């Protein structure tokens, strides 16, 4: 029983336990402990985090002349760490007050916990895949598990889950086609076989493979052309479920992309495959898809007025950064992209949790119905503040480090337009993230929220511990960079030389210990200056300047709807929903075809019809 078996067994045990005893009161807590146990089992394999070790599992199948086996290497160890961590925090969040609230609304808690456990288990199986066939099996399990957790909440959620399913199955079929093509070329499903066969393949087949695998994994990562399903589906998932999905679910696509395209096909071939009549090659294509994935969803998020929808659209946007970082494939960029996976998981989960804490207390996540909650829910505010600083990528938090690495590598590699595209994405994030915290926590407290209390400890503790992680990994990025350098070595990317505080780079490095302490010292001096002079007095929120008007609480003077009128007035006409139009055009085409086919089968007079078929068949014979 290798350590990997312990992990998979434990994960399966959690799934079975939650399925069996999900509805008992303390089911959530026990599930959280089980996730912690999984974390321990993972830590036992810490060797992979810091060195080129590989842990094989004893389970393997011998079927149809193919052997399927499962193993862990540092790439899967890194992703597994984030998956189990996200599972641990989401189930911890879902075990206290939130659980009673969820059950009070008539939903079955057992289904939710088992769906979460199934998700974690299927992701671990995917991460442990040893060859293309087990990769596909894990991939299908993951997409079905996330379908299950998405469709729990309501009929509307089930509608979005159905839409996700069609995308997922289409993606899976593309991957299966790719695997079968590889099998046809190399005769086996092993990774090594593919790696060996790649030099021999012509550019045409490689392009086909890239499109198939890229498309299939891209569907899960919600890259631009196929990004429509993710935001709505994640927004409708119940609170901690959304936190888990937002944190790690679409990163499985990135894991598989790294495994297949980066590790097996490798950058050499990617740069070589040029698109005719353009200066672009395969790597540029992936980079530009990443940049568009950064910009479009972020500016769609800007217009949302439902907090969950806004965060989900950011989920789609931030995947662009990870892909861009990984696709640059130099030591800085790939380290930035991979670290962004870890960073993003931490603060996205925290943001989703804080939004569901607000929904738990006020009943709504609509930004136009909220306001002024900072006085009532300070801890949730701190969690969201740390989250948005991380999401916007500002210095004290870890989001800054990964974005700095990506930008620094873009400058070093000399890709100006990608750099500008990435910055447009960041600025869009900063704008929409401020709108999120302003409309929900700042501004005028509404009458109906006057008596709202802070979220219970079972919800605030996970949030605050995640905030601590975000701050600490921001202060000492070296901790995460160690795992990433081990991962880079195993995947074959150039390894990043780093130290605890950041990266030492000849032409302008980054030392987060200095930068953060400098910033905190600056703010401390600001505070010193501020508090050294006269005492200030807290005044009532209605004691406010309103041009001489006597303010009263029933007049709502919070400015929250249509938050960036100038900008949206200018870029309003650019939102032409062209992707949604394309999707609905496809659906209506299938409808038309299906009605035509049904017409075919409703032929009442078959005789003429048969004569035609025979004539055609025989004439076809004569032509031969």
């Amino acid at each position, binding site marked *: 029983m290798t350590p990997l078996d312990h992990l998979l067994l434990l994960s399966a045990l959690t799934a079975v336990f939650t399925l069996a005893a999900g509805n008992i009161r303390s089911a959530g807590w026990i599930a959280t402990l089980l996730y912690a146990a999984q974390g321990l089992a993972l830590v036992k394999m810490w060797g992979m985090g810091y060195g080129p070790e590989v842990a094989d599992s004893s389970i393997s199948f011998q079927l149809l002349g193919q052997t399927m086996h499962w193993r862990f290497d540092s790439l899967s160890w890194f992703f597994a760490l984030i998956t189990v961590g996200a599972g641990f925090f989401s189930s911890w969040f879902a075990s206290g007050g939130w659980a009673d609230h969820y059950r009070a609304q008539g939903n079955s808690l057992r289904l939710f916990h088992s769906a979460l456990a199934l998700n974690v288990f299927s992701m671990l199986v995917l991460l442990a895949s040893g060859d293309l066939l087990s990769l596909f099996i894990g991939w299908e399990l993951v997409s079905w598990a996330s379908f299950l957790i998405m469709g729990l909440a309501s009929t509307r959620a089930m509608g979005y889950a159905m839409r996700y399913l069609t995308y997922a199955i289409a993606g899976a079929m593309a991957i299966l086609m790719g695997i079968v093509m590889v099998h046809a070329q190399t005769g086996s499903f092993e990774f090594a076989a593919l790696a060996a066969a790649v030099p021999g393949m012509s550019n045409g087949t490689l392009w086909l493979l890239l499109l198939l695998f890229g498309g299939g994994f891209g569907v899960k990562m919600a890259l631009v052309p196929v990004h429509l399903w993710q935001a709505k589906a994640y927004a409708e998932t119940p609170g901690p479920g959304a936190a888990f999905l937002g944190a790690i679910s679409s990163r499985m696509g990135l894991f598989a992309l790294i495994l297949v395209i980066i590790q097996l096909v490798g950058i050499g071939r990617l740069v070589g495959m040029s698109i005719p009549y353009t200066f672009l090659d395969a790597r540029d294509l992936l980079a530009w898809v990443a940049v568009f994935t950064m910009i479009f969803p972020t500016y769609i998020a800007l217009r949302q007025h439902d907090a969950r929808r806004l965060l989900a659209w950011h989920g789609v946007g931030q995947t662009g950064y990870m892909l861009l970082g990984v696709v640059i494939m130099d030591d800085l960029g790939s380290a930035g992209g991979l670290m962004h996976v870890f960073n993003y998981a931490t603060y996205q989960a925290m943001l989703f949790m804080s939004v569901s804490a607000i929904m738990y207390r006020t009943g709504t996540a609509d930004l136009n119905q909220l306001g002024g909650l900072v006085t009532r829910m300070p801890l949730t505010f701190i969690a969201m503040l740390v989250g948005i600083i991380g999401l916007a990528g500002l210095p004290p938090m870890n989001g800054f480090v990964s974005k700095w690495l990506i930008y620094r590598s873009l400058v070093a590699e000399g890709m100006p337009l990608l750099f500008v595209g990435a910055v447009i994405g960041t600025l869009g994030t900063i704008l929409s993230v401020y709108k999120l915290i302003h409309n929900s926590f700042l501004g005028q407290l509404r*009458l109906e929220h006057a008596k709202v209390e802070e979220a219970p400890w079972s919800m605030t503790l996970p949030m605050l511990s995640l905030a601590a992680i975000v701050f600490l990994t921001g202060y000492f990025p070296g901790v995460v960079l160690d795992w990433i350098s081990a991962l880079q070595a195993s995947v074959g990317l150039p390894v990043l030389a780093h130290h605890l505080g950041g990266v030492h780079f000849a032409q302008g490095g980054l030392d987060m210990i200095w930068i953060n302490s400098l910033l905190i010292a600056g703010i401390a001096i600001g505070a010193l200056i501020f508090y050294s002079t006269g005492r200030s*007095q807290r*005044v009532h929120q209605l*004691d406010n*300047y309103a041009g*001489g008007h006597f*303010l*009263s*609480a*029933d007049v709502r003077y919070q400015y929250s709807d249509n938050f960036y009128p100038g900008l949206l007035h200018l870029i309003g006409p650019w939102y032409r929903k062209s992707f949604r139009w394309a999707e609905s055009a496809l659906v209506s085409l299938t409808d038309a075809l299906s009605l035509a086919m049904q017409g075919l089968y409703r032929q009442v007079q078959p005789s003429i019809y048969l004569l035609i078929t025979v004539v055609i068949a025989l004439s076809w014979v004569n032509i031969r």
Partner: protein
Amino acid sequence: MKDIKKIEIIQRPPPPEPARRTNPLARVFDELVRFCQSRSMFMLHYCTGCGAIELPPAMTSRFDMERLGIQPMVTPRQADILLVTGYVSVKTLKRIILTYEQMPSPKYVIGICSCTVNGGMYWQSYATAKVLKDYIPVDVYIAGCMPRPEAVISGLRALMEDIRTGRGDAWKKYYQNYDFYLGNQQRLFGEKWQTPTDVIAEAHHYGMMTDQTLGEHTDLLEQNEVPLDALRTRLKARTE
């Protein structure tokens, strides 16, 4: 800054010297702070009456107020001087009191035009408040039925002198005998008169409370004060 000395100041009997802190260092520091306060006054851009038409010429190139360090500011929060210009109608007086209470102290009121002194041209009118001094403490009066910019500047110059010598503390009177002012205000606006600013809490917070601060008028205020937040009833009235 060439001809600041040339603006002559109307001589007024010097009132008693304000209390000075004993140790010399603190006194020099207070002297410096008061000097800076006198040389940098933010004027609230709020035209309460007809006299305000004289302010733009005082600000622009001919009589440039900025050389005295006076800038027009938009909100009461940022302003130090409240210029009450022209007749003070009862409706405007409500807004003046609200604005005055929203200003951070030390704050100064300058009554421009004779209407603020004793009612001026509209002394018989039922609609104007005659004596501004009864409702908010006033530092300097500038008489004239719309005094010319030179007069306004010399008034401001007198105020600067008061501040520099430490006599410009009329704003403390508002806290110290708030009851007197509140009484006059209630007499004019009725018992239900209330402003969002909690002046009594502020007086308490900054240690300006004296025995005159609280009285029967403040008790009256306590009784029929409508707590700002609990306006649910009006909300329901509004929605039916």
